């Protein structure tokens, strides 16, 4: 009886303590989010996304570290230096040419009176649809040691398997990244800068150098980093063209049951990728500036005068090399294939698999991109920044590495889904979510945070605000991003190769398998269909960019 009051006191104490802890936690929580915590649903979706993206990274690093000092030293001595040289030189050279071609074409079709510029605007984006390894196949068919040119002339004109051959083919099929992003930037460009420069007495050439180019630099950088990341992660093309970069080496290591070496090479590759991303961010940091909105005035077209002819020829040549030639070769082999009757039930099955998995991936990306981007923009905090950065990690991860991580994850933790399309779709999501995020980010940045606030003050909870206000406004952007994801996923090869469940080959895999064994007549129809299926999303995307 005596104890009762003490017990009661204790109880009161613990209750108070609990209350204090709750209060302390809620205080901490509010401070963490600077007084503006996100809704539970938003937070959960974002955190899950971030975690999913973390899997391949951590898998690779853990495996790589488990490799032990000896393997590291051994690889550092022997293979890594050569691979480094191969990979870096290729990345830098291709990126450079892609910038030159992409920027010049973007400027030509947006700002000059190039005849047929509206048509060119989207014709020149078409190479985005052609998987680079397909491009490589077509060029090998023409210029390869046993190609058509040798058949006609008796000897191949040059060695396509040369460094410059690889550079050429890669450039032709990656320049659209720079082209598309700089085109969009040129359309948004505030003309007043140009006019201010002209009012200052500068000729157009100087205006371009001093006022246009510097303001396009962020866009060029964004495009260039996409090209560089593509080159770093490409497997199909370099394998076809017998050029070994890190990604190819990792894939071959896998074939040799050597997970450890693969993981070690992957760690190095991730570091290189991060280096590129960091360097790009660094150059932008120095140029942190904001264009004012400006009046949405129709830009006057620059008259090309007698340059019209040569520049038209230039655009035509690029189009010819990057679109016409590959498509013609494909059309030829496809016609051979059609007469042989390769388009059977199975073929349509592959097409459906491609369509289904790419479609699912793009749907999921559209669903995931908004919460992450939204949370970063509207609920800034260390948490949202980390989730955002993680989600962008997919960009830096070559498909092979993503595949390794996913195999591990599903085997260990979600075995019942292992061996289903879920793996491939997950890989696509991890790899291409950033593309959707960028589009969503761009769309969201057009939506003033004041609109959210106006909606909340009208009595809506955060998730209601997203549904009622944000979603209707960013849907076009989200869809454009989804279209881009779809196009990329249709083309994806390395992760698909490693992850596809038995009997679920995609068009890309078929192209690869058939072409690497020289069966062009079966590869070509698949390639053509793949390109065809991607055209509609691309058009949609272009209309939104």
């Amino acid at each position, binding site marked *: 009886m005596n104890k009762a009051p003490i017990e009661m006191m204790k109880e009161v104490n613990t209750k108070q303590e609990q209350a204090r802890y709750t*209060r302390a936690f*809620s*205080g901490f929580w*509010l401070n963490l989010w*600077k*007084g*503006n915590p996100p809704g539970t649903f938003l937070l959960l979706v974002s955190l899950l996304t971030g975690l999913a993206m973390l899997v391949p990274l951590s898998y690779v690093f853990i495996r790589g570290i488990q490799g032990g000092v000896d393997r590291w030293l051994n690889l550092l001595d022997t293979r890594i230096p050569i691979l480094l040289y191969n990979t870096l030189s290729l990345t830098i050279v291709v990126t450079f040419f892609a910038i030159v071609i992409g920027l010049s074409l973007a400027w030509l079709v947006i700002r000059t009176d190039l005849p047929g510029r509206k048509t060119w605007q989207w014709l020149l984006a078409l190479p985005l649809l052609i998987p680079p390894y397909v491009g490589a196949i077509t060029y090998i068919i023409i210029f390869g040691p046993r190609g058509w040119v040798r058949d006609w002339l008796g000897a191949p004109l040059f060695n396509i398997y040369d460094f410059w051959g690889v550079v050429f083919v890669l450039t032709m099929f990656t320049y659209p990244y720079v082209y598309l992003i700089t085109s969009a930037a040129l359309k948004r460009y505030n003309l007043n800068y140009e006019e201010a420069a002209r009012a200052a007495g500068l000729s157009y050439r100087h205006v371009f150098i001093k006022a246009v180019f510097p303001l396009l630099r962020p866009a060029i950088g964004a495009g260039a980093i996409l090209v560089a990341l593509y080159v770093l992660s490409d497997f199909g093309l370099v394998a076809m063209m017998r050029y070994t970069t890190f990604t190819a080496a990792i894939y071959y290591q896998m074939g040799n049951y050597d997970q450890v070496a693969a993981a070690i090479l992957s760690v190095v590759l991730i570091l290189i990728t991060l280096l590129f991303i960091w360097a790009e961010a660094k150059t932008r940091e120095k140029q942190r500036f904001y264009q004012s909105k400006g009046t949405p005035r129709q830009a006057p077209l620059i008259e090309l005068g007698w340059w019209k002819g040569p520049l038209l020829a230039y655009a035509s040549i690029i189009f010819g090399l990057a679109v016409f030639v590959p498509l013609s070769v494909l059309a030829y082999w496809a016609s051979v294939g059609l007469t042989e009757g390769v388009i059977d039930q199975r073929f349509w099955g592959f097409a459906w698999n491609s369509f289904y998995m790419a479609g699912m991936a793009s749907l999921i990306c559209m669903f995931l991109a908004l919460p992450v981007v939204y949370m970063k923009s509207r609920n800034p905090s260390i948490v949202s920044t980390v989730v955002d950065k993680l989600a962008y990690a997919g960009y830096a991860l070559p498909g092979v590495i993503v595949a390794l991580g996913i195999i591990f994850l599903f085997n260990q933790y979600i075995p019942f889904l292992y061996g289903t399309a879920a793996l491939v779709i997950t890989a696509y999501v991890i790899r291409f979510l950033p593309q959707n995020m960028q589009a969503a980010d761009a769309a969201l940045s057009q939506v*003033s945070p*004041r*609109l959210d*606030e*106006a*909606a*909340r*003050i*009208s*009595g*809506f*909870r955060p998730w209601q605000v997203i549904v*009622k*206000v944000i979603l*209707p*406004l960013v849907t076009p952007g989200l869809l454009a991003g989804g279209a881009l994801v779809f196009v990329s996923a249709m083309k994806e090869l390395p992760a698909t190769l490693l992850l596809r469940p038995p009997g679920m080959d995609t068009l890309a895999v078929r192209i690869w398998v058939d072409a690497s064994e020289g069966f062009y007549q079966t590869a070509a129809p698949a390639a053509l269909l793949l390109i065809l299926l991607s055209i509609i999303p691309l058009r949609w995307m272009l209309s939104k960019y």
Partner: protein
Amino acid sequence: MFDIELLSVTKKYAGTEKAAVQGLCLSVEKGQILTLLGPSGCGKTTTLRLIAGFERPDQGKITLRDRVVSHRDSWIPPEKRDIGMVFQDYALFPHLNVIDNVGFGYRGTDKKGRVQEVLQVVNLQGFEKRFPHELSGGQQQRVALARALARKPVVILLDEPFSNLDAELRVQMRVEVKEIIKDAGATAVFVTHDQKDALAISDRIVVMKDGVIQQSGTPREIYQYPETPFVATFVGQSNLLPGQIGDDGQSVITEIGQVPCNHTHNLARGEKCYISIRPDSLEVDPEGSIVGKVKQWTYTGESIDAVVDTVTQKGTNQELLVHIHPEKIVQQGEILRFKVLPNFVAVLRSDREFS
């Protein structure tokens, strides 16, 4: 009863050195319109956002209708504060037409009727089906106001709602908004950096600077009896002179002579102070005791704003800003005589900092 109460609220944005709002105490009575007036960056918007719940104060307590909405560990999110807000940039939903914008978030069953009602109040009938981009700036602002009113909120916050209107519409809207708010029986906080807006619309004005309150009072108090040099110069133009209270307690002895004043803040004779002379109180008068040379003048239609160089009794130079009748022709370099009318002369305590 106060509808809105802020108790020593401080807010510092992450990454900035100075607090945007420092130890702010405000209270607005039910049905009143309070105006926050101050130069750009003084923390007006921040104060509104604190009241609305878009920012969380670092310190202090905010009460709305006797409900603590923000304190150390308690927090009521914006959507539960029952507030209407007109944003500086309107923040109309671009994907909704006027009706849907105004009715946004309205929960009652008489949505349609209520929307029509407020549209009538802001004089926008006939625009129901338009989308925001099909409206002029002024019309958009009125839609924003209608949206804020529709839900009959307890508290209405207006962030520079007239900033984008041209002079004519502005004058008209001032009157209308005041009436609308009064009719709705709402309590309002209104933000502006335009003194005309503030004087015209408010029951009380709070003049802020650098996140700190300088003076608070009725429009007349603020304009006629500014307490600090900052308020005197920010709210209307003014000439500030140091001086001391004259022996009669009804005038101030300054370098340009003894100036009669109506109000001396009960300062003792001989005490040091500042004096604020509005340009309108200096009248051209051939008999006047102040002599000056026109240094520069600007025609403004309603008057000629002239800067006049006078020589003080100590022999130093003193520039005075004078409003001259607009029909007079003034020449640069012309010598004029002035006298001081007591009406617009205010005595400021000299212990307040001069800035």
